[in-house]
């Protein structure tokens, strides 16, 4: 079971979190024209990297904040966690 450092609450067991997918995907702006290719990329296309992956988790059984987690998808090593407003290098 992963041990995830919530930037708001500290180290907590994976049980308290819910996975939210790739954190680097950016939703096209609301009320702006978007090509169907860009839209489809946003909705469907995801990389499935082996190695470092920046992803979203929500601390659902804690502070309910969405957070960013940089994790190695092969080893589960977590390099960094951050608030969604912060950047992960």
């Amino acid at each position: 079971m992963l041990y995830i450092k919530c930037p708001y609450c500290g180290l907590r067991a994976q049980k308290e979190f819910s996975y939210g997918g790739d954190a680097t995907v950016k939703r096209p702006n609301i009320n702006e024209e978007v090509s169907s290719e860009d839209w489809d990329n946003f909705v469907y296309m995801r990389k499935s990297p082996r190695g470092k992956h920046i992803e979203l988790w929500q601390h659902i059984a804690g502070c309910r904040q969405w957070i960013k987690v940089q994790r190695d998808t092969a080893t589960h090593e977590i390099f960094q966690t951050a608030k969604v407003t912060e950047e992960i290098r």
Partner: protein
Amino acid sequence: MSQPFRLNKEGLINRNKKISFTFNGKKLFGYEGDTIASALIANGIHLVGRSFKYHRPRGFFGAGVEEPNAKLQVEFNGHSEPNVNATEMELVEGLSATSQNCWPSVNFDIGAINNFLKMFFPAGFYYKTFMWPKSFWYKIYEPFIRKAAGLGVASIEKDKERYEHKFEYCDLLVTGSGPSGLASAYAAAKNGAKVILAEDKPRFGGTLLTDDVSIDNLSGKDWAEKIITELKSMPNVTVKNRSQVFGYYDHNMLVMFERVSDHLEKKSKFTPRQRLWYIRAKETILSTGSIERPIVFGNNDTPGIFLSAAAKEYMKVFGVLVGKKPLIFTNNDSAYETALEFKKNNVEPIILDTREEHSSELIDEAKSKGIDIRFSHGVIVANGYKKVKSAKIGKLNKDKNSFEKIETIECDCICVSGFWTPSVHLASQSGNKLKYEEKIDAFIPDKKKQHETSVGAANGSFTLEESLKHGFENGSNLSAKITETKTEITIPNVNEKKYGAHDKFWCMPLPKNENPKRFVDFQNDVSVSDIEIALREGYRSIEHVKRYTTLGMATDQGRTSNLNGLQLVSNIENKIVPEVGHTTFRPPFTPITIGTIVGREVGMEYMPTRKTPMHEWHEKNNAVFVDAGAWKRPRYYKQGNETLFEASKREAKNVRENVGICDVTTLGKIDIKGSDAAEFLNRVYTNAWMKLPVGKARYGLMLREDGIVMDDGTTTRISENHYHMTTTTAQAANVLSHLEYYLQIVWPELNVNVVSTTEQWAGAAIAGPKSRDMLSKLYPDLDVSNDALPFMGYREAEFFGVPSRIFRISFSGELAYEINVKSDHGMFMWEKMMEVGKEFGNQPYGTEALSTLRIEMGHVAGPELDGRTIPSDVSLNGLVSKKKDFIGKNSLGRKAFNVESRQKIVGLIPIDRKSSIPEGSHIVQDQNAKLPNPKLGHVSSSCWSVENNNPFSLAIMKDGKNMIGKKFFAVSPLKNKSIEVEVISSHYVDPEGKRVRS
């Protein structure tokens, strides 16, 4: 009642307390502190089971977790457990053990014919033989194999025992209480670290209990006791025996299995049987020791053949002799200690040492005691079927591949030692790539992967001095980093015997024309020839050899077989062992019970039960409940002998004719506040929200970004910047996360806050043509006329002195209202409604009637919003704004969403107006068409229309409304039904929606 193999004095058992038990029906006794194995051996019983494949007689081989053979069906404390390790299970009064995998008895087992047919059962036999014909698998092969192979029988009774889970955090977890573990725990404890010390066996001390050593002038056993006593007295230390750390998972999470009370005669009702510990450790010391390796020889699985250290443990810990005419077969010095122990107890052993004549401290001692030592000797084959009677031994030539002399000598047991294998399972599970240590011919942990540090024998250090030193040093250094305190500890003086070098000799050659089975893996019946076949047939990767031969699989996990298997492969392949590599060590290290994994999460504790504030009233009024997620909702209120069908019909009819009330507390409720709340709702829902006035509700539909409907519900504007959103019961949690996602990540600039208020409000719907009359009685001071409180109107008013919210919304399609009060007032509200509603014929209605009412109105719910439908599929395209952007809008233009033939919602009625259509039925043109019959759609919801008094269903069907008027078949192979149906509009009752506005 004498025990022929019990020594008079030796051992750590309590001779003042006899314990009686039975084995295969025979009454026996042992002492407190015995295991089933030690008690049986004391009674001279060695034949305990039959082997997995060949049904060969098997006895004990080890004295602890390493035991591959002695798995018994054990009954105690009123339950029956299969595959219990006889060498680990402690004896308790009244225990009853029976042999497994044998029929009719362990002494006469018909399956043993396999042993004589063994040329037909080589490696890969199952793969090759049972491939064809395919149809034979289920009916013939599989049942046969199941009966013949396999171990014990799982109980089908409900497990009445209590199991617990525990979550723990510590600075240092020490796994194993041998010398290095004790030293580590002690040093860390002295540094003030929070320490957990786990020992698998009942007694602490590991090899200190059996080795002839002294530490600071104390015997090993006394020193261990002294350290344990001190550790137990320290508040920062938790010391646990009967506790096996069996798994090393991600992020330094280790899992431990504690056997809390199986060894107790009496226990309180609340004492768990076993406990599973989830331990998050900052650092771990793996002091798991090592397991003795056998040397492979002919018929080496015959009962009476033991690992040499196990034989010593039986003498020193249990006061039991494994035999009175022992042969000691070794390639190293450690077995000499076993020989000396026999000698001390007046038994004359013969040592067969594969090494050439030489000298060492132990050899010299054995010689001086007059023990018969034969160098360059080994056991070729053990004789005796159910027990060793004699052994054919050979003097090896210099090449160690042929014999100078062969003779047969009598013996009643053979104690074998092929040197030691570090227990690296936990280290390997942590992700540590192991490395091969030439010096000890075994794998040891390499560079740290997580926070694991292996010490002592687990790290390949086989001397006490080194083990203690490493233990103290690592325990001290690792903990000092955490506690920032360092207490100096003087490493004690040690007195131990010096061992000479071992012989790299693992498998005894066979003389010409002799071909007895030589087992590598006892538990899985894998022999030398099986491995040879696998290699001959082209398997090269050790992982493939493992799967083809089953070497190192199952509960045994290769504890005694792994390295011998690798040595064999490397010999045949002419490779060195590190090139061959090793197979993966998987958790659990030892089998654990399913009960422990499940813990307390059984029955009512499987998940939390959510009850509405009115739950007790429903119970008192014969409600039959249904699970809606974790909620309990009344499905119907049973009157007399009513069936579900009758009751729901009565309840639904009453709503259509009079008035009914329904507990709607379970609907998800989200409070939304902030100056941008309207803008936010406008983006979340498909329809327009900017102009909703205060005091009005609106039905809204929300999509996922891929255009699929996510949820629906009403949202009410309570005040300028305050909204009350409702969701379906099932989607409440998802919708909240969804809203939080957009507010926190996508549009953080919006000034909006959301919070769940599902638990804060109790809700009741009042529905039916008489609901307004009833409402006016509930709120005598309020104008409830259609003008004052129109459809989708909202009011706040006192409900008999209690603040309440009134929403004029309807799920049933009737004139209806929903009242919310604080949860604490829920019961008061409900009882008042029942009292006031009497004169209007009010009755409570459950979810079944609720469904009937919404289905015949054509209102969609979960079965239609099933994660595959877009708004136009369920006739909700009127709610999709063309003027504004919203979540999922861009997806609605996709081609596949806009083809004419897309499956859409319709209504169905049976042609005979009688047959109910099973939900899930497929709609087909021709019920007799050849399979696969083209499917035109499926039935999503079915009810008995109380309005029209015949069955009615909703279906999602190709071409949707274009099919109205046509006839099809709804077929349900599951229910074996085929019903001719006619397609009609999905709005079966009040299609214009007049009633809700009346």
